[in-house]
């Protein structure tokens, strides 16, 4: 049985909630209250996850921390279509996915940090976070725009989304909470609409459904 250690306002956990839903994976949830409880620093949770982060996955006793590692695990273990993490597509594709997982990490450190600063008063250099997030978003917008020109709808040039899309989506869709606008990145806005229309898409507080 899979248990997800989760928090309702966590953008990183949202990446995992999306894949769990899209793959219809049965699981239980144990909530860890990061605000105001700071439960992720409690002894019981630290015992499970020394780095203290949410999300954490317990896959029948195997503990996996870090949202990207969890995405890889769930896709490899549960995706019968083999499309979310398409090992058979070859090393170049896997490398591209890994590059974009790193990009997602950079979004977390910039847009994600800006959101936590503005919403929950966590310290950061807010001007630098916003500026750097804007630069990353320009890069993603350009990448998605050229993809559209070639008939691609997702971050990787495949006819289906991958975990790279899920790694980037939450920090992008919640970026306004950090004072970052998506008005200048129309290709990103269209990509967000496409993600919202995927079967199994779920919202979180701060995200609107496709309607």
């Amino acid at each position: 049985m899979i248990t997800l250690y989760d928090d309702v306002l966590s953008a990183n956990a949202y990446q995992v909630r999306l894949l769990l839903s899209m793959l219809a994976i049965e699981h239980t949830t144990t909530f860890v209250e990061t605000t105001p409880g700071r439960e992720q620093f409690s002894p019981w949770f630290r015992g499970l996850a020394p780095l203290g982060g949410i999300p954490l996955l317990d896959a029948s006793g195997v503990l996996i921390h870090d949202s990207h590692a969890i995405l890889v695990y769930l896709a490899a273990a549960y995706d019968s279509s083999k499309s979310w993490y398409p090992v058979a597509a070859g090393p170049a594709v896997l490398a591209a996915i890994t590059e974009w997982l790193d990009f997602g990490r950079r979004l977390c450190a910039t847009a994600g940090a800006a959101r936590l600063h503005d919403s929950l008063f966590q310290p950061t250099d807010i001007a630098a976070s916003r500026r750097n997030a804007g630069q990353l978003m320009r890069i993603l917008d350009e990448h998605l725009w050229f993809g559209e020109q070639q008939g691609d709808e997702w971050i990787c040039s495949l006819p289906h989304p991958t975990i790279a899309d899920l790694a980037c989506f939450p920090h992008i869709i919640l970026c306004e909470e950090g004072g970052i606008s998506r008005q200048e990145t129309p290709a990103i806005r269209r990509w967000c609409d496409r993600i919202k229309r995927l079967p199994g898409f779920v919202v979180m507080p701060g995200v609107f459904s496709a309607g």
Partner: protein
Amino acid sequence: MPIAANLWIMTSSIYHDPASANLWHPIAACAELRDGEVGRTTLLDEATAYRIGADGTASVWRSDAEGAKGGLPCRIQYGYIWTCLGDPPADLFEIVEYAEPDRRNMNAISIGVHSSAPRAIENFLDMGHFPFVHKGILGAEPHTEVKDYDVEISVERDEVLATRCRFFQPQSSAAANQGAEVDYIYRIPHPYCAVLYKTSAIDASRRDVIAIFAQPMEQERTRAHLLLSILDEHSDDSTLRRFQQTVFGQDKPILENQFPRRLPLDPRAELPIRADKASIAYRRWLARKGVTYGVIPVAA
């Protein structure tokens, strides 16, 4: 009616209208301060710092990079530190339910939002958005009708009251496990605070209390402190908080996409409908009080 500028209070180097300056404002939830820790925040554009001493009393002072600049009045009430940049009123409004022994009292969250305090208050009073913004929790289509309700501006108590508010809710609280028509009372006893009294899912003769105490950090930036004072024998604290965090988290992107960010007090500025009676009264009450912070006053 706008207050003449020569009656405005000068606090440090910033002028504030007396309607905003001579008020208790919430600046922090006590439970979130660790022993001896100094917290820092902004109130009405001014930097303040605060701590809770070993004896449980709070102190608040104006602060800047150069150090402490001057003590401010302060009090602890409902689990929050409150302070005032001008002359504080003798009392803060009362919430009698808070003292009941079987109440679960807690701060659900203190969360920043890119909007003015009055916009946050007005959203809290609004029921029409329940089936859309809080779909499946506080409302659901096709139950979208906002039935007529009653609104009163009480000069004697200096507050706005909306009663006989009724709405069908799929899940009205963490304790509720089925849909019900819930009865609401909204009370606004302070320009930036609103209190909701809703039928308890456990005891229909009593009411859960949920309040928003909006700390006006800047004119267009607010820290919303959400108080819960509710009846629930089963859920743990974090379950109760999670419900409220979810609800406010859903309101956030609406507030942050609402313009102008300051609340327009001129009745012709926006298009109210019958369902907006409470917000119409709230805007009129703010205008009468001469509140200028976080609002666009009626043109002279």
